[in-house]
């Protein structure tokens, strides 16, 4: 799943650096992720994993790193069963 997430970040995150150079826990906002780009990122993630981020996840922390996104998606997929 991490590779899929990284591919989506690469395509939609509009980071200032190559996502390959970032560790899973690196701060994506410090790497150039803007709130506008994060919306596109969320939409792409929802489409890829066929989930919908509930309101409680729509905050900065949920998308601050590859690991945070992984945790959020994993939680939603688990809920979906």
């Amino acid at each position, binding site marked *: 799943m991490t590779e899929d997430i990284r591919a989506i970040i690469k395509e939609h995150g509009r*980071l*200032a*650096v190559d996502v390959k150079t970032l560790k899973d826990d690196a701060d994506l*906002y*410090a*790497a*150039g*992720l*803007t*709130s*506008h780009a994060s*919306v596109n990122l*969320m*939409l792409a993630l*929802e489409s890829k994993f066929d989930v919908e*981020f*509930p*309101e409680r996840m*729509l*905050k*900065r*922390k949920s998308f601050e790193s590859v690991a945070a996104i992984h945790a959020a998606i994993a939680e939603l997929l688990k809920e979906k069963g």
Partner: protein
Amino acid sequence: MLGRRLDLIEKARAIGQSVAGPNAGAVDKDGRFPAESIAALKDAKLLSAFVPTKYGGEGCSVGDLLSICHALGQHCSASAMVFAMHQIQVACAVRHAGSSAYFADYQRELVKQQWLLASATSEAGIGGDARSSSCAVEQSGQSLALTKNATTISYGAHADGILATARRNPDAPASDQVLVALHKKDYALERTSNWDTLGMRGTCSNGFLLKAKGTMDQVLPLPYGDISAHTMLPVSHLTWAALWLGIATDAVSRARSFIRTEARKKPGSVPAGAVRLAEVVNMLQLMKANVVACAEHYQAIADQPEALTAIGVAIELNNLKAGTSQMALQVVHHAMLICGIHGYKNDTKFSVGRHLRDLHSTVLMVNNDRLFGITASLLLVHKEDTTL
């Protein structure tokens, strides 16, 4: 009432009545800084009202600041806006000082010196996006240098300090910003543009080339992205909305006294504009409810960093700013229709021309079209609040 520190609010009201109001016409006409009002606010120690009591301030709440902005807005828009913009900077420094010894001293000095703080967030080549910088902090040991071509630094020439955004270092992306608190002795300002505007003429929001030197401890510890979401953006939209409500309230007060004068001339008949006044009072009530609700929500979550970054909060605050600015303009437009030619004239006690001109700035400063654009993008993922 939103504000609970009636002592401070009463001081602001008195300054509004005796100092800001009587000078508002000249400030507007000459496009000059409201020096008398700011001097009076300094004398009353209101510039440090938000500083915690442990540093000598009044430790007042954001709600208290809003009540003060509202009180000043009823007398002089420019004085209220300068006070609001100053308090936005103070709130950032107070709320995000962290464990920094430098910023503890900074707050003590702010109380003693009653510094007036300005803001340098906009930058040439960036447009209106405060969350991007092109200039960068250049570190050399513990020293820093910063050069910023700021398209606007409101009352920059009159401030005792400036809080400037910049990239963390010359290699950082545009969105990786910090906020640097600069003292007047740290910088030189070269004026790059004039401020000859339709309204809000007294804020003296010229463009400046800012050249500063300082030390690394002048950089606030938290990234600017967080400072913006936790404090700068919410407190900006709240204080602005409160003072715009104040401007609209004064216009309605003039319209009401016009109707009353008319009614007295012909006892038994309801003046032509009376129904419109009823409508406009309704709009004022809606605006006020919006300001109070947003302020109470913000105060409830102000110390919960995660809650403050929720998309729903961003949308709520964008709507407060966009909605209040549009509605305030409509309210004053109605007030002018009620007062008729007496409202249109600049020299009657029913004049609302200045109010109208001042309020035209509100939809442009952080342009509503851009704000609605941001909200539109957030709505692609946000879901409605289905609770009441």
